[in-house]
């Protein structure tokens, strides 16, 4: 029992470390893909790492009005994102901390990080922080039911809310396709775009005060504090894409920890994430950012898709 737990935490450490190491790359890859679509060259592939290193080396600058909440915010946000990655199967068809819980715990953990960051955003007294926190919590609240319903559609098909059980069930089935998968995938993809702050919901590249959401929330952060926020955001994006892979196309995942199986799983995972990154890039390049009050319409499309998926599957 104790040995199992230690083993689980060891695996969690490895997986979280690996995901943390890869996450900045994903951000840069999407940037580069986007640049290519615009006939630009884009940043070097390692730019994400350079940025993080630079920020981590800088002197921390904090507001005079801020309290310990301001310091705790990015740290809890970071910790929640890292802890969340240990709840998701990535290469092996089992999450390292599968014993801790399933998708409800995953969603709850991400909500914990969001709560911490939004509260911290109010701490400096800058109106931007408040604006960002308000908008971020609004959009998160709207996305939550669609996200849950989309996850429920997959979970009910698998008969379990545990991600590991769901993935193993899908692997056992082999390549099978149900029309409801398409709807559920489309619904969840919209939510992934929403939650990761991509166009058309939010623009990660803007600092124009009227349009930014996530960026407004973290506008007052600098140096190492900002590095944590950026890193955690990148990790969250990788996490959401991995979740899509797990729920809809886990084929190729390792069912044992044999080196060859792991290598195959790594290549398969990287390939699938890359394809999803192309999806995200195309969505971001072909759409204009929506006005804040048009976002509910987009999210309700996702909610509708998830509900339809559920109805088609079970009626």
């Amino acid at each position: 029992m104790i040995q199992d737990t230690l083993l689980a935490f060891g695996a969690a450490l490895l997986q979280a470390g690996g995901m943390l190491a890869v996450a900045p790359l994903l951000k840069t890859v999407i940037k580069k893909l986007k640049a290519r679509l615009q006939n630009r060259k884009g940043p070097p592939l390692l730019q994400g790492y350079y940025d993080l290193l630079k920020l981590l080396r800088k002197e921390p600058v904090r507001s005079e009005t801020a309290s310990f909440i301001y310091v705790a915010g990015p740290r809890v946000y970071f910790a929640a994102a890292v802890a969340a990655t240990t709840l998701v199967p990535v290469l092996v068809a089992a999450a390292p901390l599968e014993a801790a819980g399933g998708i409800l715990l995953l969603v709850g953990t991400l909500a914990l990080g969001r709560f911490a960051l939004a509260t911290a955003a109010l701490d400096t007294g800058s109106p931007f922080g408040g604006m960002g926190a308000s908008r971020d919590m609004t959009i998160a609240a709207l996305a939550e039911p669609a996200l849950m319903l989309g996850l429920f559609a997959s979970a009910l098909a698998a008969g379990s809310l545990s991600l590991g059980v769901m993935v193993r069930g899908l692997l056992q089935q082999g390549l099978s396709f149900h029309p409801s998968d398409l709807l559920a995938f489309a619904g969840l993809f919209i939510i992934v775009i929403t939650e990761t702050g991509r166009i058309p919901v939010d623009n990660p590249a803007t600092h124009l005060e009227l349009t930014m959401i996530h960026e407004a929330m973290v506008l007052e952060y600098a140096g190492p504090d900002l590095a944590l926020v950026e890193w955690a955001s990148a990790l969250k994006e990788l996490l959401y894409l991995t979740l899509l892979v797990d729920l809809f196309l886990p084929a190729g995942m390792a069912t044992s920890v044999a080196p060859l199986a792991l290598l195959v799983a790594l290549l398969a995972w990287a390939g699938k994430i890359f394809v999803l990154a192309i999806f995200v890039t195309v969505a971001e390049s072909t759409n204009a950012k929506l006005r804040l009050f048009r976002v509910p319409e987009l999210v309700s499309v996702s909610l509708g898709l998830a509900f339809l998926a559920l109805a088609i599957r079970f009626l």
Partner: protein
Amino acid sequence: MGGSILASVVTVTVALFVVASGQPVDGVLLRHAASGIVLGYSVTPLSAWFLMVLGLVGAPVALYSVGYFGHAVKASRMAAVGTAFNLLLGAVEGVFVADGVMSFLFAWEVMTLLTAALVATEHEFPTSRRAAYFYLVMSHVGTGCLVAGFLFLAAEAGSLSFPAMLAGDIVSGPTRDALFALFFLGFGVKAGVIPLHVWLPEAHPAAPTSVSALMSAVLVTAGIYGLFRVCAFGLGVPDVNWALAFMAVGTLSAILGVLYALTQTDLKRLLAYSTIENVGIIVLGLGASMMALANGSRELAAVAVAASLMHVLNHAIFKGLLFLGAGSVAMATGTREIERFGGLLRRMPWTGLFFLIGAMAISGLPLLNGFPSEWLTFQALLLGFTSTPGMVRLNFPLAGAMLALTSALAAACFVRAFGISFVALPRSQSAAEAKESPWAMLVPQALLATLCLSFGLFPGVVLEALGSVMGSLPGLEPREDMALSGWGMASGLGRFDHVVPSMLGVALLGSLAAAWFLTKRGARTRRVPTWGCGGELTPRTEYTATAFSKPLMMIFRAVYRPTQEVEALAEVSPYFPREVRYRAEIEPTFERYVYAPLARAVLRLANGMKVLQAGSLHAYLAYVLVLAVILLMWLGGPT
């Protein structure tokens, strides 16, 4: 107050004893030989659960009152408020332990009257008087329904004691449905479910804070206790339609409760609306269990009942904590307006920390106690989907989505409530000069905050305690291994889902350490003023609570139906206003479209009855005669 603390501790002990042993404790208080009326008490495992909730919240609240009443209640009213508070605790206890109609209704009425009196503590303000009156009227309509229902049941059963009346086989068919509706109405008013909630946001904030905490944390559970005892488990196997009604009312209360809470700027009113939300979650869980009972899935019914009862406990603890925090803040600043707080964390660090813990718990974040009960409710809804036949089951994922929306909106609501009140710059002079509360007010908050953390980290312990309660209710079949030997929870039925929060806690701690390690190098922190867009940063440039909830208010326009006016006073040119006034309010939908017509109808009816009651003695004598003749004809006729 010392007495009530002691009494609460004794209550918890008795309750824990019953919960642990699963054996009811019965006794007789009063026996009147001539009428055959026996007033007794009976602590069944279900009532013990509610007693435990009462005691766990009652003891800290009583301790808090020692510090609070001295400052916040006028000296001339101290004795009355203190006595009423202690009696109220006793009356609520009476409601939970009553073993028959007489003692139940007596305790119920005492509870109602004492609460009404306490709500009217500051009776020099018309709002307090109105709130108390409102509460009294609605409660009595509810009690009227209960009296009618109980008398009917008692007549059918031929007994006034609960075990005989609530055996479940007394009535059937449409009579049973009508009785269910009566009880639902009667207990629903007390529980504060929408649309019977309108008294709650008026009455809860008007009372002194200790009483508000008690009302929101425990008094609403008196209504829920009734819903459990009578509606769900007292009238036989529930009908599918009853279950649907419960689920609909629960979902509606949860969503609307949190939406209204989001726009409040009075901290205590905000908490009162959030009570409606949480009652909604509790009723939703109960509805899911009734659906399972109606379909005969006994294991699932146990999961749903556990969800509901666990949320009763968890809500009582974090709502008690939040109300105590709100009371401390109101005492320190002299106002309940969120817009006039700000920066309180520096002046009142302990209150702020405890309020933060409560806010995180109520938002359903893992590691705190709001999460496990919401988690269990989700399990009940999803399992309900898999084990309910037909189209009806589509209700479950919909309710699940609504529950997800509710908890996310609650998070937004409490980011706002905590963030605007406790961080950034003070928004008023009184907030800038606020002082931390005395220890007698801080210790109870610390106790409740500790409970929030421990029940959040080890929900299995709570679930194990619930085992005997579930075992005592008819039709439930709890799985043995649900509590994962105290560490977490499993929802059974195969390997559906499980959660072990402490494991996540370890992962979070590890990641926090990593974050600390990553950022510990580097130079000393430089402190600089926040950039105020070139201007000076003052409280007036901060984001306000109203602004924070504005996007949601716009998005849910259909619910709020807001009216707003912007008025710009300009002297030279309309482009350079000297002053801008902004006023916005949301439409009180239920008050305007349900209760106002109802009140008008009642008044019209009363006006019409004036003709009968004209003040003429002769007419009255004639009524008596006519009535006597009719009664004689009716009673004497058939025989």
